[in-house]
């Protein structure tokens, strides 16, 4: 993985010193509240319902064991012993004191980590495919491009005070696992008909109050021009993006109000001015970063293992886990292993200090000392050889990280909701737990098959509800928690926004509502091969709606 050189390290250290001084001045009453708020947000620090929350960047989701141990140390030392993985490959600590944050940042800097631009109206953490470098359907490893772009965006002098936050995701595989179409800029790495590498560029996607799927503004951008093109998009946005209304300030609104074709023209005109500038990447620049992501030393004999099949035959629980939590690896004899952070009685995405320490050890023992975090709030050991799958499973099971539910109904994407967040209207974690308990039976879940249930506590949409196959959005109705349901959303290649079923349902009815939707699907589907999403797209809203509201009314 990428290793900081003296420059990267110095910049992060200097950012810690700068933030320490900003915090000191704030506490001394020298810095106005609203200005400190904007400055601390640019270093990931929120003040939440009960305490400050610090969001730490995990660039494109990649962590070394050493970094994971440091996250455990921070959870133990400054927090209540755990952290929370977010839907954008960050980790949040919900209980640090404001005064301790500069020390936390110094600890992070000691392992090449930071919280720079994890919030605020600036360019945020770059996200990517959690299977980068190992997926069989990958064109090239997207991580070097992410790292190059991360450096370009870090403390960019022109774009640190944008109209609104700005999120960029980069994907390089046939299946989009990075939800690129719901980002302000979505980058697909592609090869053109001449065999040259480049990018298809999407802009104006986003979730939140006005969810929109991004539009393509360029079919093919040459490989060397990634930064100049992003800079052109950002410059047009910084100049023309709305600042009169926070709800209309994202680039998606600018693209919509300008028209995609006209917006593309503005970008192209700006890009023409800068494409041959210093922003053009050289082969040496690319190679220098690419060498950090060279393949680890895979064992050529890994595929010869015979113990694995015997263990599958002997142990049904292990077999169930391998069916759900392993993904194909491009190297024979290796698998990418998902550790599920969606267990009974645990808030989705939460991980405690002991688990973090153990994950660091397991990564060293079984996966070249690296682990990834996913936007679905799970962990991935990307390079595990076949003979190690059984002991890894045993260890994960002992840690409560082996729930065999990846991609199933209980693999819920969920924001912190009313329990932590001061923006939230309604609980999300408690609803997730109720749904977990109801659908815990794995046979039922396997029967339901591929399912994305996404839940947000408010319309800011941190739980990506708009792109859930089933989306649940918490709304406030006269001080009570209600839930708006959408069906048919997707953040993959066939990206779409969910359709509202109708009136929201109450807290008491929401788990029943999910069950009714699932039962409708089971009754309507052609066969077990037709997923919930495919079935919904075929039969439409009507049967789901009829059953859902008949049940709600019958109860009322």
């Amino acid at each position: 993985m990428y290793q900081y050189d003296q420059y990267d390290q110095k910049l992060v250290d200097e950012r810690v010193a700068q933030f320490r001084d900003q915090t000191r001045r704030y506490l001394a009453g020298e810095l106005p509240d609203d200005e400190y708020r904007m400055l601390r947000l640019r270093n990931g620090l929120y003040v939440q319902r009960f305490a400050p929350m610090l969001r730490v960047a995990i660039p494109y989701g990649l962590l070394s064991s050493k970094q994971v141990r440091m996250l455990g140390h921070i959870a133990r030392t400054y927090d209540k012993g755990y952290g929370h993985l977010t839907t954008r490959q960050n980790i949040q600590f919900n209980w640090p004191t404001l005064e301790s944050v500069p020390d936390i940042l110094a600890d992070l800097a000691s392992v090449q980590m930071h919280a720079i631009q994890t919030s605020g109206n600036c360019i945020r953490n770059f996200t990517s495919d959690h299977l980068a470098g190992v997926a069989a359907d990958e064109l090239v490893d997207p991580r070097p491009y992410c790292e190059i772009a991360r450096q370009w965006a870090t403390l960019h002098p022109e774009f640190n005070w944008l109209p609104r936050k700005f999120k960029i995701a980069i994907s390089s595989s046939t299946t989009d696992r990075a939800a690129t179409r719901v980002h302000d800029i979505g980058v697909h790495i592609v090869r053109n008909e001449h065999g040259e590498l480049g990018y298809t560029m999407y802009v104006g996607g986003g979730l939140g109050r006005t969810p929109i799927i991004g539009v393509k503004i360029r079919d093919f951008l040459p490989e060397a021009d990634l930064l100049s093109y992003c800079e052109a998009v950002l410059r047009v946005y910084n100049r023309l993006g709305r600042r009169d209304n926070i709800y209309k300030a994202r680039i998606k609104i600018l693209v919509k109000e300008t028209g995609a074709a006209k917006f593309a023209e503005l970008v192209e005109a700006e890009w023409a001015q800068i494409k041959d500038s210093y922003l053009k990447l050289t082969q040496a620049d690319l190679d220098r970063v690419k060498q950090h992501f060279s393949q680890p030393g895979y064992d050529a004999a890994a595929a010869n293992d015979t113990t694995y099949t015997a263990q599958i035959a002997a142990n049904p629980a292990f077999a169930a886990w391998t069916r759900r939590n392993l993904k194909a690896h491009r190297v024979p004899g290796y698998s990418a292993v998902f550790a599920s952070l969606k267990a009974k009685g645990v808030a989705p995405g939460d991980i405690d200090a002991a688990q973090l320490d153990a994950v660091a050890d397991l990564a060293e023992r079984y996966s070249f000392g690296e682990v990834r975090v996913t936007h679905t709030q799970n962990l991935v050991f990307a390079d595990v050889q076949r003979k190690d799958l059984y002991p890894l499973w045993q260890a994960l099971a002992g840690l409560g990280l082996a729930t065999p539910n990846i991609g199933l109904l209980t693999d819920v994407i969920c924001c912190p909701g009313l329990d932590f967040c001061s923006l939230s209207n309604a609980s999300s974690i408690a609803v997730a737990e109720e749904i977990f308990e109801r659908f815990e039976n794995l046979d039922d879940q396997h029967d339901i098959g591929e399912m994305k249930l996404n839940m947000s506590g408010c319309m800011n949409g941190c739980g990506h509800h708009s792109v859930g196959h089933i989306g649940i959005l918490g709304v406030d109705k006269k001080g009570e928690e209600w839930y708006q349901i959408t069906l048919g959303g997707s953040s993959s290649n066939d990206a779409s926004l969910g359709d509202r079923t109708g009136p929201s349902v109450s807290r008491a009815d929401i788990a029943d509502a999910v069950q009714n939707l699932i039962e409708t699907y089971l009754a309507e589907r052609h066969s077990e091969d037709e997923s919930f999403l495919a079935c919904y797209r075929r039969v439409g809203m009507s049967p789901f709606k009829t059953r859902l509201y008949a049940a709600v009314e019958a109860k009322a």
Partner: protein
Amino acid sequence: MSTTLLRNQRVEADDYTPLADDAALPASGKVIVSYGRWQAEREALLASSLAIGVKLPNTVDVAGVLPEIADRPLIALDFPAFPDGRAYSQARLLAERFAYKGELRATGKAVVRDQIGFMVRCGFTSFELREGQDPAACIQAIHEFSVPYQQAADHARPVFLRRRA
């Protein structure tokens, strides 16, 4: 109200006077007029013996108005609110793309120690500090970061060029 002016990384006396749109022209000296007044009274202003700087609103497309202002000895760009960063883009275009060599002045609510480093990087050369700012701390803040990732208008040698060497 007198503001503190930083220029050449030190406090300097402000040789320019802001001139209200309805104020009479002084006989001599240096003034800063609004872009509106510059457009409306350009001939009369040029006929005076004044040195005339122009202050642009941050909503103006710099490329579009360049021919009208390129020969001014001073262009002031405005930050009407602390988080409104439009003038950063205006400054980079003037300083980098259009090679403006006059005084590029930052004015308004964001001209504080916490943003001045970015302003220097985007090509501003003088700063009307917001009231209550400590000039020494602002000068120090310009050097808070020793190596930038990006090339910009301040000609600091960016990391990627150092690595190529």
